[in-house]
């Protein structure tokens, strides 16, 4: 949908009154984005009768310099530079009334190294704008110059592996269940059993903070007893993500300091603490040689629906800039939302050195990462040992596989569940490296390995038929004939 420019130039542009956004310079179809521009791709659904071009221009205006009326004070500024420019509008394939709008923003619009500032513009006022029925931020191209102003993951995949001395396979974790109600002493029991049985990590759930049944200090003390005991029992480095999420930054720092003092290698936070708090904790983690796990609690409120909100691939990009080390990014085969192509796109955003445009996976732009550390994706929710071949094939080896129910729900106990997962993982890596076709032969490989591992045999019997096959609510919309902007 390429139209001509409507921009009014000269003194008429600043005549008082209301003027269409596309006439104010927010629609520039001839504009070629600069290497230093931030580019956003929005999915816009204009109200009935609203011209999509005008809607795109309005999004550009409202997410940058515009207000509802012409202001003479624009003329005191280099306004043409600061105006965001919608430069391309495409119909969304197979979705009537929806359009992809590409908008370029000059780098000077953003404070260096601040996700809060970036998001205040890009997803600020504009999402409530009346002429739109719905608005979704699909993807962003963050220029190298801007990426370089962020710390990036405090530790990164490579250094995390070096610290843990674990290479060549996914890491294994489990979330302690039940998520609420265990005392500190009982909670630590689960941690010990799971780690001793063969997992690398255990994890607090997102809503375990400091509640009447368990003060956070109790949890930390008992968890570290469990971690150290499991470490001595196996000769391997173990860890548990101690959730330091709290009401204030002061509380979070206090909890993180205590975790560090106890010798933990890792702490965790929830996405709901907000971008500024996340960036603060990322800097704390870098300063204190700690790994920082992010639980994406709350993201589905705005990532799940296709027509409105923010795509998770954008959240993943922001999280990599903000500097967390782990992020939950979907499982494909588990109980939570995620189609394979879209999920592959999220994983690429986390782990690539350079993410190439790939419309089939929902990646709209080439994205340079400028040597920012890699972000370890975490797969969690409804996965079990019997899916190991699929998980490895879909997600690769730089991932944390979290088997919560798939460990603690094992009929012979938590340690047996952990062992089953570890053996399933190691036999699959061994087979993959030997050149076997694990997707096809996976079930046989597991059965073969189970011959010398009773817990695995039990796990395979218990969960052999568990799958979650529902249609995904978020999958990429593209046609091979559609080309996105580079």
């Amino acid at each position: 949908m390429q139209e001509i420019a409507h921009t009014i130039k000269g003194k008429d542009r600043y005549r008082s009154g209301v003027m269409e956004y596309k006439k104010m310079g927010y629609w520039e179809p001839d504009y070629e984005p600069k290497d230093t521009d931030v580019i956003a791709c929005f999915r816009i659904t204009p109200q009935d009768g609203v011209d999509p071009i005008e809607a795109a221009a309005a999004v550009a205006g409202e997410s940058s310099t515009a207000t509802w009326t012409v202001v003479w004070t624009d003329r005191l500024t280099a306004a043409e530079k600061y105006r965001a420019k919608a430069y391309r509008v495409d119909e969304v394939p197979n979705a009537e009334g929806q359009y992809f709008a590409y908008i370029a923003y000059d780098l000077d619009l953003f404070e260096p190294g601040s996700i809060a500032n970036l998001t205040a513009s890009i997803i600020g006022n504009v999402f409530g704008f009346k002429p739109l029925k719905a608005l979704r931020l699909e993807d962003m191209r963050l220029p190298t110059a801007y990426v370089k102003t962020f710390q990036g993951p405090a530790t990164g995949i490579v250094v995390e592996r070096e610290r843990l001395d674990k290479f060549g396979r996914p890491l294994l974790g489990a979330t302690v269940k039940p998520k609420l109600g265990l005392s500190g002493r009982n909670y630590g029991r689960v941690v010990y059993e799971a780690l001793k049985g063969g997992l690398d990590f255990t994890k607090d759930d997102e809503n375990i903070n400091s509640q009447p049944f368990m003060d956070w200090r109790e949890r930390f003390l008992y968890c570290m007893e469990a971690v150290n005991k499991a470490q001595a029992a196996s000769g391997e480095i173990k860890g548990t993500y101690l959730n330091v999420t709290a009401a204030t930054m002061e509380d979070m720092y206090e909890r993180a300091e205590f975790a560090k003092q106890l010798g933990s290698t890792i702490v965790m936070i929830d996405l709901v603490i907000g971008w500024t708090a996340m960036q603060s904790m990322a800097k704390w983690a870098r300063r204190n040689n700690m790994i920082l796990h992010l639980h994406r609690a709350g993201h589905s409120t705005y990532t799940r629906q296709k027509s409105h909100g923010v795509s998770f691939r954008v959240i993943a990009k922001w999280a990599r800039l903000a500097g967390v080390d782990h992020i939950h990014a979907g499982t494909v085969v588990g109980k939570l939302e995620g189609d394979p192509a879209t999920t592959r796109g999220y994983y690429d955003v986390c782990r690539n050195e350079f993410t190439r445009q790939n419309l089939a996976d929902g990646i709209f732009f080439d994205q340079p990462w400028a040597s920012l550390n890699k972000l370890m994706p975490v797969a969690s929710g409804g996965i079990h040992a019997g899916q190991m071949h699929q998980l490895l094939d879909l997600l690769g080896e730089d991932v944390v596989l979290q088997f919560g129910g798939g460990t603690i729900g094992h009929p012979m106990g938590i340690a047996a569940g952990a062992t089953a997962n570890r053996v399933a993982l190691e036999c699959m890596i061994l087979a993959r490296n030997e050149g076997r076709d694990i997707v096809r032969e996976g079930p046989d490989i597991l059965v073969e390995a189970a011959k010398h591992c009773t817990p695995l045999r039990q796990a395979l019997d218990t969960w052999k038929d568990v799958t979650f096959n529902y249609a995904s609510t978020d999958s990429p919309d593209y046609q091979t004939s559609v080309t996105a902007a580079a």
Partner: protein
Amino acid sequence: MRVTQGTFSFLPDLTDEQITAQVQYCLDNGWAVNIEYTDDPHPRNTYWDMWGQPMFDIPDAAGIMMELAACRKAHGHLYIRLSAFDSSHGWESVKLSFLVNRPVEEPGFRLRRSEGEGRNIRYTTDPYSTDRPEGSRYQG
């Protein structure tokens, strides 16, 4: 006990044929394979002794297996691991690391606790084997 460091420690000890296949996988990826041994299996003992240097530009696993045989001949009573290094930008570290030899008896680790105030405990992990001086451990 059984030290479970390395990628394949939960499986039965790998046969030479299985090790060869893993080594070939590393070589086919262009990684340099290194042989290391130690008599101190502490989980944070990073620097095991190197059996020569990482082996670069080797197309076939037989070359590595020849060195492994030599290392086992000299240090067959200790822990030996193979590590593969990827020099490509953005990684420049180990890509795969697994044990290929372990002592007949693995006495394991003592966990020392020193109680501090406020119920704080300082933990120290000591391999029982390191009670004896370096060079005289795992002598049977």
